[in-house]
């Protein structure tokens, strides 16, 4: 039978011991909460550049560098992918949809522009710009000789809706402006035109014909929606299918770009959590044993006045449970606050040049593009399991350790006077 008065007197009367035990549990809980939330937030952050464009992965082919920068040319990172290759990819298990696009550079005497051909009804890729139209309207299926312009580029060029522009030697009318600054920079361009017209321009471009064969229905950028847990498998299957020159980007590709710290945090978060937890188990067990040793006389007195081993163990169990429950709650609050603080931190995820190619030789061409992503802390099942099972395991460790020491304790210790 537990006596509340004795329990509270032990918790409040031995403040140092209570503070150490509660503090230890709180610290461990806080660290584990932070690691768990941070790992989840980083995982989501790495997916952001692709999520922005509604895809799990992108596929490109590496090709030759254009011999001459004149008229429409294909950057070396986006060589043609034939319609047949695209169809082979779409038949792979786990693929949900493929959106095709064509990205090209268009050089003229007046200057240079990056152009993307898209299908306005696609579920992924540049078609998602429909949510970023700031003026005018988005391209629709069946539009012809119409284009959308990126707002910053258009402002610099002094263009707006209704203005005429020349792309690949053909006239286009700007019908809308889009702001790409808030989304991923993958496959972004200065101008967006219907896919069929972009394919026509590429198929008839003399500089492209010198080094590539671009047939009807071909493209050079694929945005793929696939089963999230199969992305890495599908990526390797695509590489096998298309050959060595294939470049497949997945969330893991972005992890690698961020360098060792984030990769380590990600890869070893489970191991770090496990080590912290093991350390906590050892310390809690050690503290429980120390608490028993510290109370040798008290426990001896308990036995002497008629407390059974079960009575004593129950008392110790409830005392340790109180430490662990209070410590866990405190740790969850502290961990939550720390996670809230971390949620204001942003990670700059680099976008590889290959995925948003600009000519190196032009001003700003070598500038590294980044996607700033705030670390969003979302408590999930893992955190719930942690909050539920960790106190139980810590409690068991404490009770096991305390019980072991109580059993070893000699009641006759109380007769020793020092």
């Amino acid at each position, binding site marked *: *039978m537990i*006596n509340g*008065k*004795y329990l509270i*007197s*032990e918790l*409040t*009367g*031995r403040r140092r011991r209570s503070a150490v035990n509660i503090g230890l549990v709180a610290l461990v809980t806080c660290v584990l909460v932070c690691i768990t939330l941070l790992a989840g937030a980083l995982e989501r952050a790495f997916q952001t550049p692709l999520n922005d464009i509604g895809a799990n992965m992108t596929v490109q082919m590496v090709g030759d560098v254009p011999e001459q920068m004149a008229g429409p040319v294909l950057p070396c990172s986006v060589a043609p992918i034939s319609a047949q290759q695209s169809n082979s990819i779409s038949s792979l298990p786990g693929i949900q949809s493929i959106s095709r696009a064509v990205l090209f550079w268009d050089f003229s005497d007046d200057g240079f522009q990056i152009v993307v051909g898209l299908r306005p009804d696609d579920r992924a890729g540049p078609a998602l710009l429909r949510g970023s139209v700031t003026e005018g309207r988005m391209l629709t299926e069946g539009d012809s000789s119409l284009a959308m312009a990126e707002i910053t580029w258009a402002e610099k060029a002094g263009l707006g809706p209704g203005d005429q522009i020349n792309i690949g030697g053909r006239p286009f009318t700007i019908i809308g402006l889009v702001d790409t600054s808030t989304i991923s920079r993958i496959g972004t361009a200065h101008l967006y035109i219907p896919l069929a017209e972009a394919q026509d321009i590429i198929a008839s471009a003399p500089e492209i014909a010198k080094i590539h064969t671009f047939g009807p229905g071909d493209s050079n950028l694929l945005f793929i929606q696939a089963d999230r847990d199969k992305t890495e498998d599908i990526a390797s299957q695509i590489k096998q299918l298309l050959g060595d020159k294939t470049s497949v980007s997945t969330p893991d590709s972005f992890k690698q770009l961020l360098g060792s710290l984030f990769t380590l945090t990600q890869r070893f978060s489970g191991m770090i959590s496990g080590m912290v937890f093991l350390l906590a188990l050892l310390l809690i067990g050690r503290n429980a044993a120390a608490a028993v040793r510290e109370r040798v*006389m*008290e426990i*001896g*007195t*308990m*036995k*002497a*006045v*008629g*407390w*059974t*081993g*079960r*009575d004593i163990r129950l008392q110790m169990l409830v005392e340790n449970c109180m430490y662990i429950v209070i410590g866990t709650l405190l740790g969850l609050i502290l961990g939550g606050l720390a996670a809230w603080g971390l949620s204001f931190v942003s990670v700059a995820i680099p976008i590889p040049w290959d995925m948003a190619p600009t000519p190196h030789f032009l001003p700003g061409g070598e500038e590294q593009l980044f996607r700033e992503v705030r670390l969003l802390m979302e408590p999930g099942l893992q955190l719930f399991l942690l909050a539920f099972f960790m106190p139980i395991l810590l409690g068991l460790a404490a009770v096991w350790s305390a019980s072991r020491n109580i059993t070893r304790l*000699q*009641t*006759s210790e*109380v*007769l*020793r*006077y020092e």
Partner: protein
Amino acid sequence: MNDTNEIKSNNNPAIDVRHVSKHFATVSPVRNAGFQIQQGEFVTLLGPSGSGKSTLLGLIAGFEQPSEGTISLDGQELTGLSEDELALLRRRMVGFVFQAFHLIPTLSGLENVAFPLYPIKMSVQERRERAGNLLDKIGLGNRADHLPSRLSGGERQRVAIARALVNEPDILFCDEPTGNLDSATGKEILNLLTNLNREQGVTIFMVTHDREIAKLSDRSLFMHDGEVTTL
């Protein structure tokens, strides 16, 4: 302990020790001890330090099992009982007074007196009443809420005696109960114990090395080199 002055009428000796020895690896602190203490007797166990007094007390109280021999309390043989069974037996019929008081430092005087009752199903009010009455009897009613650290040595020992009596035991074991007190306070404590024995018939078995204390008891046993003799 009875509420009246009735002396226990049970025929069994309160303490019955037969051929008891305790051997450790190289020493035998108790060797072939044998004696009986009747209900309501006040017996002291004298002897110099290291003579085995505390070991014998530990054996009789069931803190340790003897290597040889048998020990019975009020006809109940201790040999073969588990630790928990011995604890329950102590709860039912034994009270303890230690030289070092062994009060729980985080509990008040009243809560310390009630401490042996904590594992027993009993209302808080009844527990407080029993503990409060005992504190009143020993003249510490006004110190009930004080922590042990705020009590004098004599007051602490009186709280310890009240704690030993709260289970209404038949036998009171005292291990040098005045050893930690000045002589005046020691006398007060001894008066309290002898009154308990005479007025309420509590059997007292007291370990001491003080021959003056022994004079207050009904009879004394002497222990030397592990052997018990009657004085």
